[in-house]
């Protein structure tokens, strides 16, 4: 990245997309109403585990305005499999995928059992009420540990103990031996609470079928249009070429708009069946019932540590809930969660055994962080407990074990290859910002100044270091220059809050020397854009950004050749400066970028150049980029009420080079907000009969703006050597760092080793009473 100050890249350019989004002029899936549209709604299972004895749809079918009522036999009679694909490669069993409508059994509360298509939403809902389903209940299990026990009800025959997969990462026996050798063993039991994605916009789809062309267009809430095209093709038994997926504006994703759920598949199937457009928008409750939910880990960990604080080994056993069906890779996901257990530390031996367990709950899958928050939470919590037991300051213990900058690339004991890092400066920056004062010698752990330390509240400070794996897989990036010099940039990623319209334009503007205004960024159309991967896992700037930059460089080279020909100069003598191609040493011999663009499509090209001025890149990074940082929080706990106030929250993040510091800051803010949500409020709860109690926003507490502190952000910059931009991802840092930071602070305030999330006032009061 160039050091020149007039570069757009690296500067806090305001987000170009915001005006349309904030003034309500942006178009979302549900805004789309084709003239022939019918409306789809589901009958959802009232039971968590039951055989379906019969479904009576006759009354519903007779209702005025009801076009069709479907149950599994209708789908089974079609040429489409109608089963959402599951990746079973890393599983120890072969469970079936999730049927679009329940086949003969339901395995979680809210599972779609029948579908009603009607003239409008009112009729569809009337139809839903008129369908009656007879169930024969089975025993229910929602707890992943109980599901493994002898005598627990079984969900799938091929997994009699409900264990979908037992996976080992690192080397558990080596880790256990190292722990035995250590001066001390520190242990922790913890739960990572079950969460539900709460994007502002629920999932939605509008399926339009062109019978003449036999082509299906599905406009939907997708983070990954090409990914969804493939999944729909598999579920519907159609070639990918027969499906076009459009993702218009999407109101947040966080993972659950990358997965494949019954709604969009059913809408697409029904559109083909009745040959008219079908709209479907999940209600908030439907979205919550269906998931995907996330996290829900139970973990026991042991850390071997010497008296001087040196970490020797870390052994981790986790039981992870994967819900009632595998959804895509959802059941395999826990199997790789341990990849970040080394956090920022040189731990010579790490082992992690994970059991992914089916239960009668909504399927689980990735949610902002996807395994990373779970892993870092284990390590950062146990490091705090170790500090407490050893009487070593928490910051000092971390400092002593941090991997030093000269050890990179660093291979962790759990198989991650860290690209680059300089951990201590971020830690020091946080400590300084929050006023952390270490006095290890006199036994006082630390003290932090706060506004009014004498108000009777208990003060605590939390620190968490983390690493984050970012940017896997390939991505497509197109740069197309039009004859008038305007530029279209397209990528296979999808922006639903990430600001690609701004960042990609910044990157390409710098490469081509054109103003940002000349650049139009397109995403979200599987027909118009070459096959891409999508946006998740903090990958877009690394992969999509690099792809569009490489295409822009190719375009610039060709433009330079065209310019050289037109200027009758040698290519080496021509340079792009201030939007013009100039001949070195002859300042008046120049041709503008627009003129070159026109020439590329007109006459006057040299014979060895083809017409056109565009390039397509499929870029794949040279390996994972590991972002990192340290966050700290100061909390005040009111012993009378159990209230927790976050008095300060300081985030120091390092995502390598920053294309746009404002967007980086925004990503940290959003992530921290969600991390605080997990730490303090959010939890999806099922009752004993497997009914989801947290089935609306009045029951599932997503934090409100007034419940969040002012988030202070700072950064350090350690470029990644694994991509041409030197960037690392930043999308998930906050959800990773905030939970251990907040829990550490509250445990410190309460003077206990650990408290499980969410830190409700009632839980805080219980701890205080003990």
């Amino acid at each position, binding site marked *: 990245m160039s050091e020149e100050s007039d570069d757009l890249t690296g500067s806090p350019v305001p987000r170009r997309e915001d005006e349309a989004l904030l003034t309500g002029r942006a178009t979302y899936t549900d805004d789309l109403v084709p003239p022939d549209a019918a409306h789809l709604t589901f009958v959802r299972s009232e039971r968590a585990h039951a055989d379906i004895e019969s479904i009576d749809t006759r009354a519903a079918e007779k209702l005025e305005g009801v076009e069709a009522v479907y149950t599994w036999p209708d789908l089974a009679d079609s040429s489409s499999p109608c089963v959402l694909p599951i990746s079973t490669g890393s599983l120890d069993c072969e469970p079936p995928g999730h049927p679009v409508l329940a086949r003969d059994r339901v395995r979680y509360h809210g599972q779609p059992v029948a579908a009603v298509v009607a003239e409008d939403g009112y009729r569809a809902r009337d139809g839903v009420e008129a369908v009656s389903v007879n169930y024969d209940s089975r025993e229910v299990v929602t707890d992943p540990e109980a599901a493994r026990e002898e005598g627990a009800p079984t969900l799938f025959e091929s997994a009699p103990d409900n264990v979908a997969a037992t996976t080992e990462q690192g080397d558990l026996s080596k880790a256990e031996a190292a722990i035995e050798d250590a001066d001390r063993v520190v242990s922790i039991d913890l739960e990572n609470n079950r969460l539900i994605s709460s994007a502002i916009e629920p999932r939605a789809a509008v399926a339009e079928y062109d019978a003449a062309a036999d082509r299906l267009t599905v406009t939907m809430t997708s983070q990954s249009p090409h990914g969804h095209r493939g999944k729909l093709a598999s579920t519907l038994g159609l070639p990918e070429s027969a499906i076009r997926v459009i993702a218009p504006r999407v109101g947040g994703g966080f993972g659950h708009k990358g997965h494949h759920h019954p709604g969009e598949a059913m809408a697409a199937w029904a559109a083909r069946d009745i040959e008219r457009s079908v709209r479907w928008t999940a209600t908030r409750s439907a979205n919550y019932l269906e998931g995907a939910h996330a996290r829900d880990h139970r973990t026991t960990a042991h850390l071997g540590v010497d008296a001087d604080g040196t970490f020797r080994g870390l052994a981790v056993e986790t039981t992870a809930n994967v819900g009632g069906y595998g959804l895509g890779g959802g059941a395999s996901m826990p199997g790789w969660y341990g990849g970040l257990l080394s956090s920022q530390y040189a731990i010579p031996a790490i082992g992690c055994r994970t059991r992914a367990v089916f239960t009668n709950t909504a399927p689980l899958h990735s949610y902002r962080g996807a395994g990373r928050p779970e892993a870092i939470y284990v390590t950062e919590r146990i490091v705090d407990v170790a500090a407490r037991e050893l009487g070593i300051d928490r910051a000092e213990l971390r400092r002593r074990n941090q991997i030093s900058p000269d050890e990179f690339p660093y291979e962790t004991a759990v198989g991650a290859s860290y690209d680059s890092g300089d951990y201590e400066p971020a830690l020091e920056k946080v400590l300084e910002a929050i006023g952390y004062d270490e006095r290890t010698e006199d036994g006082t752990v630390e003290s932090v100044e706060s506004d009014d330390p004498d108000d009777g509240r208990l003060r605590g400070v939390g620190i968490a270091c983390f690493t984050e794996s970012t940017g896997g897989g390939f991505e497509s990036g197109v740069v197309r220059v039009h004859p008038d010099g305007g530029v279209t940039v397209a990528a296979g990623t999808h922006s639903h809050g990430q600001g690609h319209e701004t960042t990609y334009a910044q990157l390409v503007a710098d490469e081509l020397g054109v103003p940002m205004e000349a650049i139009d960024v397109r995403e979200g159309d599987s027909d118009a854009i070459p096959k891409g991967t999508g946006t998740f896992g903090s990958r877009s700037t690394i992969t999509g950004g690099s792809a569009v930059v490489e295409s822009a460089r190719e375009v610039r080279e060709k433009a330079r050749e065209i310019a050289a020909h037109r200027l009758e100069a040698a290519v080496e003598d021509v340079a792009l400066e201030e939007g013009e191609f100039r001949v070195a040493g002859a300042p008046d011999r120049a041709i503008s970028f627009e003129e070159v663009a026109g020439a590329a499509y007109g006459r006057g090209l040299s014979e060895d150049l083809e017409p056109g001025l565009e390039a397509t890149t499929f870029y794949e990074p040279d390996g994972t980029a590991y972002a990192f940082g340290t966050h700290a929080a100061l909390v005040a706990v009111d012993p009378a009420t159990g209230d927790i106030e976050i008095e300060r929250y300081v985030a120091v993040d390092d995502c390598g080079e920053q294309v746009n510091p404002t967007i980086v800051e925004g990503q940290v803010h959003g992530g921290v907000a969600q991390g605080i949500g997990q730490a303090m*409020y959010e939890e999806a709860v099922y009752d004993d009969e497997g009914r989801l*109690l947290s089935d609306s926003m*009045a*029951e599932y507490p997503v934090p*409100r703006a007034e419940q969040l502190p002012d988030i202070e952000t700072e950064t350090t910059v350690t470029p990644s050597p694994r991509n041409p931009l030197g960037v690392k991802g930043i999308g998930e840092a906050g959800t990773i760092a905030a939970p251990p930071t907040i829990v550490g602070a509250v445990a410190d305030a309460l003077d206990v080793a650990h408290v499980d999330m969410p830190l409700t006032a009632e839980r805080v009061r219980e701890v205080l009473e003990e």
Partner: protein
Amino acid sequence: MYPPEFDYYRPGDVSEAIDLLSGGGRVLSGGQSLLTELKARQTDPGRLIDVGRLESLSGIDAGSEGVRIGATTTYAECVDSAGVREAIPVFAAAAEHVGDPQVRNRGTVGGNLAQADPEGDLPPAALAADATVHVAGPDGERTIPADDLFEGENRTALESEELVTELVLPAHDAGGYARRIHPASGYAMVSAAVVFDVESEAVAGARVAAGGAVERPIRLAGVEKTIEGTPVADLAGNGFPTEIGNALDRAGDEVDDELPYGDRHASASHRRELLPAYVERAIENAIDGTGSAEGGESR
């Protein structure tokens, strides 16, 4: 979120509304509770009688001895009314904490009392403020003192064909409200409302009500008795006199004869435990004239 089919009526005056109600259906006022129930298809009344735009039911009339508030007056109108803020600060403070700006601009005083949500803000405030509810029905008009209005969770002394027309609240010298926000719904998980006059610089005519921790708002007689006659100066300092502190600690016991209210976010016993802290805050708010405070969130 599609409600079941219903017939919609917009009566031109109260008597037409009463006539319509006699034919069945439910009163629609601000719709901030009823519409959500309809959309979730938790209720299917068949008929809605919309009184929301009846001018005669809306408005605030502040006189020297008290304030009349029409049933369809919104929370926002109460909060914005200098008359309400000065004469019955407890009510303005409670109204200020209801939901969010959208809800406060649509939800109405009459609807809130008729809804009688255990976690509603206005019921304990109306109770502490000694409000009188004016009601019109097929048999004419009657009044219900707030002490007799609330019978249980979503249950009041109102008959189904009756309409709340207005609320009359006597002026008081000091009033304070404190509530703990419900972590999920934002309603009042625990609330306390305190009202008193100041005579010879001491508390007189104290009325203290609690909500959230019980199925219906109740008065805390023990707390009322203890603060009665206490010099206001004793309540203004740091820390209350011992016997008041003790009475506050027993506030939880006072709800024991009632049906405790709780949910999985905050059990009944937890709410009961929190009650003293919120009664204390309500008293403090009454004394310092700020009227209100909210707990349970990062300040």
